[in-house]
């Protein structure tokens, strides 16, 4: 059926894309004036300086370094962090990813669930007070920057009164505020998406068919409306998962949470070039992989897509 060929082609394309991203990142990062060890080595003796430069490869010209870096990436060797002495980039990623992933998944679970619920209520009460309240709330919520929302939560809900820590990452309690801070973006997005999807389905003729059968309104909604309304929702979910796993820069920064986002910002601030390089490639690879897997799954699962392809041939 040509499915394998299709998958392989996509996979090849993905590898090429990743290679281009890695190269572009390499040259961008190396265009940064100065390097992270220049400041540190300012007052060091020449021999030590040379040794350090050699250790991080800054003694070699650009092209050989490019070759070394790319060869390293192929083997999964992302190099050493220049700031966190003695730590390799993959090690740092491995220790930060679970933090970001947990926070992100918690945000998503809360946010998406609430969003879908609100979307359903809003669509079924279309044009009535509950709908207006939800839609106004969603419009309002997207206008509050995550940054501001995090800060407000921190200002008003953290501290002795509630027992919720102001910053840091230790135990479930410390995850509550950051989870809420990140969740509402998903809530307003999925509430709007769900509402428009349901309204779209309700306008379809097959809903009229269902109504013409004399089944209960509840059954029309659950069996016919919701089931079909979830199809477009599902297409957005994998990307949401990927995005949330890679961390939310601002929430992590506000609450000082040691996740990927926070460390990315720190690495950029400290000009930790190998970290920036490694993190960028890692995040890009993760996102590309999700897109690839989603694509493949859809081809396998949704027979309508298969049908369209058959129709074209």
């Amino acid at each position, binding site marked *: 059926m040509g499915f394998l060929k299709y998958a392989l082609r996509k996979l090849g394309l993905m590898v090429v894309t990743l290679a281009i991203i890695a190269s572009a990142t390499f040259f961008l*990062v190396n265009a940064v*004036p100065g390097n992270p060890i220049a400041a540190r080595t300012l007052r060091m003796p020449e021999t030590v300086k040379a040794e350090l430069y050699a250790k991080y490869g800054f003694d070699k010209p650009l092209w050989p370094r490019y070759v070394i870096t790319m060869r390293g990436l192929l083997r999964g060797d992302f190099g050493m962090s220049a700031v966190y002495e003695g730590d390799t980039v993959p090690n740092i990623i491995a220790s930060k990813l679970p933090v970001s992933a947990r926070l992100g998944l918690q945000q998503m679970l809360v946010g998406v669930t609430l969003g879908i619920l609100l979307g359903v209520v809003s669509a079924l009460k279309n044009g009535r007070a509950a709908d207006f309240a939800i839609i106004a709330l969603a419009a309002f919520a997207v206008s509050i920057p995550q940054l501001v929302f995090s800060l407000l939560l921190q*200002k008003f809900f953290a501290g002795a009164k509630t027992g919720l820590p102001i910053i840091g990452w230790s135990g479930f309690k410390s995850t509550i505020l950051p989870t809420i801070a990140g969740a509402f973006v998903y809530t307003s997005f999925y509430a709007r998406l769900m509402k428009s999807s349901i309204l779209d389905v309700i306008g379809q003729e097959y809903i009229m068919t269902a109504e013409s059968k004399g089944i209960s309104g509840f059954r029309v909604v659950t069996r016919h409306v919701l089931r079909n309304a979830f199809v477009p929702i599902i297409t957005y979910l994998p990307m949401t998962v990927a995005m949330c796993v890679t961390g939310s820069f*601002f929430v992590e920064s506000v609450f000082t949470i040691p996740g990927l986002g926070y460390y990315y910002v720190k690495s950029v601030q400290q000009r930790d070039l190998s970290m920036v390089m490694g993190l*960028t490639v890692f995040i890009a690879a993760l*996102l590309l992989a999700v897109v690839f897997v989603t694509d493949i799954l859809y081809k396998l699962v949704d027979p309508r897509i298969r049908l369209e392809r058959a129709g074209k041939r």
Partner: protein
Amino acid sequence: MAWRILRRNPVAMAALGLIALFLIMAVLGPRLRGIDGGVINVKAKNAPPSRELWFGADDMGRDLFSNLWLGLRVSLTVAVVCGAAQIVLGSLIGGLMGYLGGIVDVVIMRVIEIISSVPGLLITMIVMMILGNGVLSLLLAISITSWCGTARQIRGQIMQLRETEYILAAETLGAGAWRTITRHLIPNTAGIIIVNLTSSIPQYIFMESGLSFVGLGLQPPNISLGTLIASGQVHMDFAPHQLLFPCAALCLIVLAFNLLGDGLRNALDPRLRR
């Protein structure tokens, strides 16, 4: 037509009024009270809002009212410049792709796909790292990824228009390329561009304040809403006004753009008009 529908939408008109007000205040605001926001005044250190200092003062006694509008100036500059960059670059590149097609189209399309597969914030941060902090580098760093979405949509629209009969008719009737562009392409793509713009301007304002907040955009002594919020966070326990006023300003400006955007979308999308 679209304007007439928009004018009947009170929410969108209120948002437009708010944006206009903010624009005026960004120009006049810093000088309105006759207090130089840059002057350090030890006596007014962390002063709460008062009749003299409407929004209070920061940890060095500087007037927050004057500085807030200075910060807003940066936000609005980002909105205008990056928005303009998005339109100009997007239409130009998208137009090129749609009109030339072939290898140009394929190559640029690949570039867009590659750029879009990395979160825009990462690219912006890396570019900021190269260019250093400052308004100009910030504008450049945000603009650099801004054009992709618009270009792709303009390209799609042009491809679609070229298929439709009336362009064909116009071309066979001997209308020049210029006429085709002004009479057919621009009216048909203007809607897409505007809708695109209103949804991305809040993103740009977000990005600026976020980057400045974490120290990657503007840095003190430069003032933006992000830097104000960052220093406000430090003193939020005993001088909450330092955090709340800039936060409120940021929320309001983004809300105004979002509401105007919603209004425009409704006015421009004929499918929603029913």
